[in-house]
């Protein structure tokens, strides 16, 4: 995928202070850094002193059983939910003190399939281009770029209520990339998509990272997705990270021919014993669906 970004980037190139990227990407300060991040809901501790670092340009997967605290973590990192304790920095900005700066630098795709059905894809994108504060002279170009990048040009003027699930997801990713965010947060980006749409989303996410250097933090319940797409995964359980590493390293840790399912069960499998029976799981699912 060839993306021409030079027309708007050239004048600022002289400001660049970055080290030249050699064969290996340079070791940079992490783009997302959580320090003891904690969130209580009444008696529940949804996220419990979580400390994680997501390197720049990484596709990072948060895994864990229902109710592990993945969505709550993302809500705190996207400044929607204030932490009960601890701090986090996103793209160098504190999620509480510099919330607006954080929001300028992130994109977010929620757990729900959620573009506005009463508008066309183009209108949806133009709204977000304005809300993200993209300069007027660049707006149309950025919308066209996002449509092209997500292969939605033909559907640009169709009402979104006539889109397929896969197209809506791609439109949402398009919305979240308009302002070239440094970090993209995706909550279960491929849930409910057919295999073809799922692979398309993966390709587009890889493309975003490769062409724009976007750091991607996503949650998933799909082990194949984690294995294929994520370079680093963290398995969460009861609000804490119980394992961190590359999928292959974690597999080796668990056993000679373990797959990622085995890794998941090994680190978080106790969830039924820990978390109670069917009713609680059903309730968590319902809450998760309602709250995104």
């Amino acid at each position, binding site marked *: 995928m060839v993306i021409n970004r030079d027309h*708007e980037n050239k004048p*600022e190139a002289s*400001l*660049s*202070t*970055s*080290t*030249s*990227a050699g*064969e290996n*990407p*340079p070791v940079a300060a992490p783009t997302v850094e959580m320090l003891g991040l904690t969130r209580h809901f009444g008696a529940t501790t949804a996220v419990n002193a979580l400390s994680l670092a997501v390197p*720049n*340009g990484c596709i990072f997967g948060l895994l864990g059983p229902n109710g592990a605290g993945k969505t709550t973590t993302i*809500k705190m990192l*996207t*400044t*929607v*939910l204030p932490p009960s304790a601890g701090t986090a920095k996103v793209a*160098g900005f504190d999620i509480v003190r510099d919330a*607006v*700066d954080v*929001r*300028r*630098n*992130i994109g*977010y795709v*929620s*757990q*729900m*399939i*959620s573009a*506005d059905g*009463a*508008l066309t894809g183009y*209108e949806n994108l133009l*709204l*977000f281009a*304005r*809300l*993200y*504060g*993209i*300069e007027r002279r*660049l707006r149309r170009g*950025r919308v066209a770029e996002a449509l092209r990048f997500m292969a939605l040009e033909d559907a640009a003027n169709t009402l979104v209520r006539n889109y397929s699930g896969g197209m809506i997801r791609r439109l*949402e990713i398009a*919305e*979240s990339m308009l*302002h*070239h*965010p*440094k970090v993209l947060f995706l909550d279960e980006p491929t849930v409910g998509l057919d295999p073809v749409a799922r692979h398309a989303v993966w390709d587009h996410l890889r493309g975003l*990272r*490769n*062409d724009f*250097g976007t750091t991607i933090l996503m949650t998933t319940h799909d082990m194949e997705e984690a294995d294929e797409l994520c370079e680093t995964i963290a398995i969460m359980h009861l609000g804490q990270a119980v394992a961190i590493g590359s999928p292959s390293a974690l597999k080796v840790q668990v056993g000679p021919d373990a797959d990622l399912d085995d890794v998941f069960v090994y680190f978080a499998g106790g969830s039924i014993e820990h978390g109670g029976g069917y009713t609680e799981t059903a309730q968590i699912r319902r809450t998760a669906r*309602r*709250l*995104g």
Partner: protein
Amino acid sequence: MAEAIQRRPRFAAPRGVSANELAMTAFIRDTTALAEVELRKLGRDPIELFTRAIQPTLWLLVFGQVFGRLRAIPTGNLSYLTFMVPGILAQSVLFIAIFYGISVIWERDLGILQKLVVTPATRSALVLGKALSAGVRGLSQGVIIYLLALLLRVPIRFGLGAIAGVLGFIILGSALFSTFSLAVACLVKTRERFMGIGQVLTMPLFFASNAIYPLSVMPAWLRALAKINPLSYQVDALRALMVEGGHPLFGLGMDLGVHLVVLAALVLLTAKLYPNVVR
């Protein structure tokens, strides 16, 4: 591709994003962007506005005609029907705006709100954008009531200033009550509770106002309530501007001031409550 992953310097904002523009410019841009989108949606599906015509028609044709004959309510130099027309317009504005808050619950359930609150747009722009689009919806009620009034031969003031004033107050009143409604929605968070509370709120707001009877006939306690009810100021302004012989009781300046102050206070309050809905 390695070159693409290289570290970028840290700016306050990504490239192409205006980080240093005036807060006011951004606020106006975000507000109009949101209002524009709502209007576009309304334009595609305007049926709802026409069904809204039924209730005010019944009030004017049935209630207005009967009470006009009775001459039970002292309305000074105005006929009762003439007195009542601006009151029913204010009522329609109230009724259409007071349930508007459900849209924020609706958008929360669809996941749209979650995306809006992670943009850099200020929360008050998100709120005022919605309020203004509700304001324009209210205008449709103005058109309907003007037509009804003409049919009923109510003496209408046709001056450009008078009509512009009426439309302006309709927008302000709709924005005010829809913001109130958004605040309630942010507090109750579910559709069912919201609909219940909406029903409970409308009638007291309507009856504790000068919409269909003047302040002078009210018992003291009701008059005290009517004087702190923003709807009374909406009615007062509409009555002064819309019909021949109408006079403002509080003064148009006072009416305008109350609208602006209450609207601003409600927008600030609702902006504070807004993120609660998605937590």
